[in-house]
């Protein structure tokens, strides 16, 4: 008995430590996806569904060079250190040809640093940090979603069109919030030098004291408010702000506030008249967007979120890069990503050669409440390419290269 158990155990241990099977030439092409499927389930699940759908479509159409794509999804608990280890495992043991994923910026930055070190391709699909392609940018990291800077610039453009000159900001107290406020200030001040910023509030992420924040904002007597809070913080902020009349006669600009991930939970209490970036999946008619929404709803029996679109575009981008690459070696895939154009529901998206940022844009619109649900109206898709700094400026920001 003992001997048998021992043999079984040793076999298991040996299997765990054994050298990897050499990358198979005829099996599927493996992609490693690392995300916070548990810690950020509300965002990661729609993303995964969009991603899976894209890969299913690519495989149904014959795959890449006759081989299917297989994505291995791994949970990193939202910890950068775990993500690094999983990345190593995916690349060295599972035979992945490249990495994708992450929502949290810190995890994205950790993986990008490893990718640069090891010469592995990493497509940062959802993290928003500007640092990912600029101050900490590297040749091996590409980013799909419109960055903090781009989305803030879209709202700043809208803000410049209004009469408001006294702005107050509220943003979670961490890098994303700080970047979002800095970018908004930078672009808005350039467009309209007479604006002044009369108050800045920095609640702790997911621990907002909404009543106090609203009182503090009211005290600053601004004409307009720029909101970067999201998730449960946004719900509390909207509720307290509406109850206490903070939003009356004030223009409000909300970064990401129009994404279904954040707007849907608010239901009938969704704010009205905010100018936001988001994803109005319910409003598309007769275009590629509508087609994607219909396919997605049929496939998963639920409506898409913004993450679904990002996940779908991630899948399409990976497939396009593999199609374009001369081989599945990292260097070839990297070269294929540079300047790569992908056509998806929102139109054509290009991974810029100058900073590896894709030109995927965002939808900008005004919030309203229809039939007990928050929606975006008067929306338009803004191409991301128009909201990036001049090339010379990008080069100085991407100084590391």
């Amino acid at each position: 008995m003992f001997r048998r158990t021992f043999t079984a155990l040793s076999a298991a241990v040996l299997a765990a430590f054994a050298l990897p099977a050499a990358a198979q030439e005829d099996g599927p092409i493996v992609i490693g996806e690392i995300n916070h499927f548990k810690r950020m389930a509300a965002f990661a699940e729609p993303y995964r569904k969009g991603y899976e759908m894209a890969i299913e479509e690519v495989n149904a159409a014959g795959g890449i060079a006759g081989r299917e794509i297989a994505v291995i999804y791994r949970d990193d608990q939202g910890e950068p250190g775990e993500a690094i280890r999983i990345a190593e495992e995916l690349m060295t043991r599972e035979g992945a040809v490249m990495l994708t994923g992450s929502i949290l910026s810190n995890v994205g930055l950790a993986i990008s640093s490893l990718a640069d070190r090891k010469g592995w391709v990493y497509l940062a699909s959802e993290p928003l940090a500007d640092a990912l392609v600029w101050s900490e940018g590297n040749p091996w990291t590409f980013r799909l979603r419109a960055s903090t800077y781009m989305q803030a610039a879209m709202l700043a453009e809208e803000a410049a069109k209004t009469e408001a000159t006294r702005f107050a900001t509220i943003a979670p107290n961490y890098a994303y919030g700080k970047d979002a406020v800095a970018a908004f200030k930078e672009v808005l001040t350039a467009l309209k030098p007479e604006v002044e910023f009369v108050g800045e509030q920095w609640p702790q992420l997911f621990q907002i004291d909404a009543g106090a924040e609203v009182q503090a904002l009211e005290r600053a007597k601004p004409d307009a408010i720029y909101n970067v809070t999201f998730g449960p913080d946004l719900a509390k902020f909207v509720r307290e702000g509406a109850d206490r009349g903070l939003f009356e006669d004030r223009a409000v600009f909300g970064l990401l506030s129009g994404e279904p991930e954040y707007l849907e939970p608010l239901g009938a209490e969704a704010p009205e008249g905010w100018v936001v970036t988001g994803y109005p999946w319910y409003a598309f008619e007769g275009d590629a967007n509508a087609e994607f929404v219909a396919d997605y709803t049929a496939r998963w029996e639920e409506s898409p979120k913004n993450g679904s679109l990002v996940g779908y575009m991630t899948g399409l981008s990976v497939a396009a890069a593999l199609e374009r690459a001369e081989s599945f070696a990292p260097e070839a895939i990297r070269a294929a990503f540079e300047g790569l154009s992908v056509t998806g529901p929102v139109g054509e998206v290009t991974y810029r050669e100058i900073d590896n940022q894709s030109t995927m844009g965002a939808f900008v619109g005004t919030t309203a409440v229809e039939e007990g649900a928050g929606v975006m109206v008067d929306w338009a898709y803004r191409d991301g390419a128009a909201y990036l700094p001049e090339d010379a400026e990008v080069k100085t920001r991407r100084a590391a290269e």
Partner: protein
Amino acid sequence: MGLILAQILTGLANAGALFMVASGLSLIFGVTRIVNFAHGSFYMLGAYLGWSLMQVLPGSFGFWGAILLAWLGVGLIGALVEIVILRRVYAAPELFQLVATFGVILIVQDLALMIWGPEDLLGPRAPGLRGVVRILGEPVPKYDLALIALTPLVALALWALITRTRFGILVRAATQDREMVGALGVNQRWLFTATFALGCALAGLGGALQLPRGGADLLMDFTILTSVFVVVVVGGMGSLPGAYLASVLISVVGVFGVSYLPQSTLALTFVVMVAVLMWRPFGLLGREEVAGELGQVGPPEDPIAPASARMRLLVGMALAALAALPVYGSPFALVLATDIAIFCLFAASLHFLLGQAGLVSFGHAAFYGGGAYAAALLVRHAGAPMELALLLAPLIAGGLALGIGFVALRASGVYFAMLTLAFAQLLWSLVWQWAGVTGGSDGLIGIWPARWADSNTVFYLLSFALSVGGILTLRHAAHAPFGYALRAARDNAPRAAATGFDTRALQWAAFTFAGAMAGLAGGLFVFAKGSVFPNELEIARSFDALIVVFLGGVKTLSGGWVGGAVFEAGVDWLTRFDYWRLALGLVVLFIVTLAPQGLVGTARALWARVRP
């Protein structure tokens, strides 16, 4: 004037839910001596249960009925947890129960995700209490006023329960001396169950009551936990009036902080906590802990002995086999083994503090993360080579421990633990806020090993050598006169002092030494990962270490690293599955109930039975 009044009212309303959750935690601790890490989970359950009930129960009656039912329901769940799990581990070493509550956290997280789904739920409004009233021209939400009125009512009811009923008399008696209560013929088991259930019910009530001001989400269990700990400690563990006073103090200070120092939101509550504990080391209304009160329950520890020759041979062979891993292991095995080695050193350093000095630290991540940041900052800002950074990381972390230990060791027992937690949080907020130097939440990236240690193989050997060296050093210290003196101070401080030992200096030295070793682990971590983020300073990291030390076995010499190795490898394996948190929670509970002496302690007991 109007604004200041309105701000005070906001603070008082915030204090409501906080008080209910905190009073529950305080009550549970007072009687059962359990530091219930899962208290936030009961708060979350209260919110989710309340939300679901409000969906089916109509009108104003339904709203308040739902809150009442949520209160009852969470109380029942609490009773169940106590009967099924905690009852089995009261005889375990001091504070061991918190490992069980950690398992509960994991299970509740996954169950809530399964039942209620990933999306945030917006709390229903209280019927008839929507909107604001104007007080001196300032808008104040009606529901805030309801909460302000309700909180003292709950507090009064609790007070009446504790001072005017037989149950209350028993609770108070058990808070003072639970052995005596048992000796006088009171059925302690049901007293503990009732108290635990009541405490959990209060947390559930707090969760349900805050629904109209927010909602239910899957992160709320952890987000409230730190503030609740702060309130309980500032008020004094086990004191209900103290909990009320502290929740009001923390909330009102918080509101003014938001208005007049908006950047302060991260650090403010912890600054208040440290200030109060410097002034009154046992909280505002707490009473001094009697030495040994936390009780060295269970059989006395065997004296430690050097390992036998056969054991040395075995360990030596195992180490040799591990050192040869590059020969037969895959590249990934090396990476995993590196992580495990580093984590083992971190766990062993905390284990030394717990096991040898009897000091329970809830903030050991301060030194692990501190060492990591020290190394990263040296590389980033001073261009230091890896060798120098690795040399200085433990020294800087040790220096940090020297400073924190000086203050924290003024208190003892749970207050000491909470002070270390507060300092770890302060360090965390400093790193988080001071983005210009530390990179804030975006961390410091691109910190890689020197060229010679660049390959996974060499870096593995380096980490392995340093970790094993560190662990052996810790072990050597336990066998040295220093270790004997430490254990003397741990087991009987007055007698040790009478023998001529400066017990505080001994503990201080142990704290510094353990901090330095954690710093070495942190330094290695940075170069293994190439980056460092504030995650390494988080409470969760301190808890990780604490959990593995208990799982490994506090009253053994090797519990720390064994627990670390098993846990780290287990988590790496389990996260491949969908509901890994549920699985991990169950595994933890399984170990806790079956092997309350920890893995090593239980293995040793079994071995002793086989071979007398």
